[in-house]
């Protein structure tokens, strides 16, 4: 069992050493944002990749984590670490609530994708009019660098923090893979009716998955709030994060531990390329994302991880 964790730990250790060699702020920022997207994608992947429930509205978790962290600090004076934890927990609770509503109603496939999209839009509209969340003008976390305020003096520290979060999430997913819950989740993805016939409590399995998924993606949102210190409804609950969360997993390799990390690095590189080619005009990066999404679905349905595995002669169990 322990050997399954070794590759993950090795890669995490290698990533942790990076700031000792890479000192460029541009490069560290690049990596920091990529890891944040990988974290959001790891949340999506647990539900969508392993469980087969495609959410088009993971922004609802990302935004809730971000707003909870910001609002609890700014409006209620709660400690940043506690606010961070509360944001993550709230994301999980929201996942449970949304899952309880939608999965109990039997929504799956396109219907589930649609309803998650609608939840994200509802959240976006509420956040854009509610005074507590700063309504249209957004919310600003006052700059106060320090350990207690969870604001980092150097980019390397922020990088290590998000790496630690991602590492925990990846190890959690790896652990789930080897447990009964993981097998049941994959069974639900492959054939829900068959899983039910074999005695899997499908609803309970889906609810566990969406709760963990919501919490993981919410922690990425809380990290966003701590890093950029400003939120508005379009950033926190905007469709961009819903799309990026699912893209990282799908491009990297859906239903694999590595998928979101690899996908996030590739997509972040594409996004930089878009900025480079398109200048200050927005949009080009996302055009590239859309094209990559279609190409991956067409030519590499298991993403980059799937391509790499198909190049190796020995057969590995998927999942």
């Amino acid at each position, binding site marked *: 069992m322990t050997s399954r964790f070794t590759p993950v730990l090795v890669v995490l250790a290698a990533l942790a050493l990076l700031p000792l060699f890479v000192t460029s702020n541009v490069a560290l920022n690049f990596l920091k944002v990529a890891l944040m997207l990988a974290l959001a994608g790891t949340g999506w992947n647990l539900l969508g990749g392993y469980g*087969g429930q*495609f959410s*088009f509205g993971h922004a609802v978790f990302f935004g809730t984590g971000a707003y909870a962290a910001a609002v609890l600090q700014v409006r209620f004076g709660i400690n940043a670490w506690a606010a961070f934890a509360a944001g993550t927990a709230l994301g999980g609770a929201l996942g449970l609530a949304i899952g309880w*509503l*939608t999965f109990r*109603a*039997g*929504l799956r*496939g*396109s*219907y589930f*994708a*649609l*309803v998650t*999209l*609608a*939840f994200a*839009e*509802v959240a976006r*509209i*509420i956040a*854009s*009019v509610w005074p507590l969340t700063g309504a249209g003008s957004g919310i600003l976390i006052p700059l106060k660098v320090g350990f207690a305020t969870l604001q980092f003096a150097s980019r390397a520290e922020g990088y290590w923090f998000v790496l630690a979060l991602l590492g925990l999430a990846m190890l959690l997913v790896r652990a789930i893979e080897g447990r009964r819950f993981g097998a049941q989740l994959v069974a639900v993805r492959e054939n829900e009716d068959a899983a039910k016939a074999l005695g899997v409590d499908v609803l309970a399995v889906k609810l566990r998955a969406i709760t963990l998924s919501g919490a993981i993606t919410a922690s990425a949102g809380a990290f966003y709030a701590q890093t950029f210190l400003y939120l508005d409804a379009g950033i926190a609950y905007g*469709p961009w994060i819903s*799309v990026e969360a*699912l893209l990282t997993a*799908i491009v990297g390799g859906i239903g694999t531990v590595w998928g979101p990390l690899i996908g996030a690095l590739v997509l972040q590189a594409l996004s930089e390329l878009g900025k480079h080619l*398109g200048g200050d*005009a*927005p*949009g*080009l*990066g*996302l*055009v590239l*994302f*859309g*094209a990559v*999404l*279609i190409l991956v*679905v*067409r030519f590499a*349905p298991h993403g980059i991880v799937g391509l790499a595995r198909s190049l190796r002669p020995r057969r590995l169990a998927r999942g």
Partner: protein
Amino acid sequence: MPLSPDILIQAVANGLLTGAIYALIALGLTLIYGVLHIINFAHGALLTAALFAAFFADRTLGIDPWASVFLLAPAFFALGYLLQRLVIWPASRGEDRAILLVTLGLAVIVENGLLFQFRSDTRTIDHPFGFDVVELGTMLLATTRVVAFCAALAVAAGLGLFLALTDTGRAIRAVAKERLGAELSGVDVPHIYAVTFGLGTACLAVAACLLLPSFYVTPQVGNAFVLVAFTIVVLGGMGSVPGALAGGLFIGVVESLSGLMYGETLGQLGIFLIFILVLLVRPQGLFGAKA
């Protein structure tokens, strides 16, 4: 806030006028769903593209939207046909989850391509009838919107007749009901799929030309419509043409009334809540037989 009956009637009438356009957009969506069994997430982005096409036909070529619709509807039919034939079908191999992702990818490409090209500026045209109104009892209704209402209903009726009476229409309905049976009777299913997608896209071109005289264009404008259209389709029952019509008019009125009472942003919220509620409680829709 006390509301006089006149204001209420006016709001209902305006809601019906908008609702007819919604119905036309939803009609395209529900047709594609009914036959191909896919939810076309690119619908909103294609509507935006059609609005831009109509805008530049007016601004650059000087063709009024009411005239350019006769060019744009066939052009968008061809676009939809080719998208289905060359992109969506080959890329997704007919797999549900893959289709979802491919249409999402298309939406992202079209929307952001337009954003990149035209920035997020708001564009409008000056229509010769832009400021005219029609008096109906105590109501004053914008002429462009009354024309749009009538044209949208006419197009919906025309589409219904096409599906009911022509050979292609019969083939479309046959594929929708029983794909394998239709295939065995000699229907070219990939062709019918593409024709249906083309028809759905052509509906968007018509809707765009009708909207433009009284509306604006931005690269994100389609999003607002598409979620409303999803709501209508879900409400009316996925794949049901009369459902889309009734749902469109109903949502138009709901939006207009809730906008009047709670302001525009919260009015939108009401639509999404209806949407979630219908999906949770009755996903087969109010008119649909089975999801």
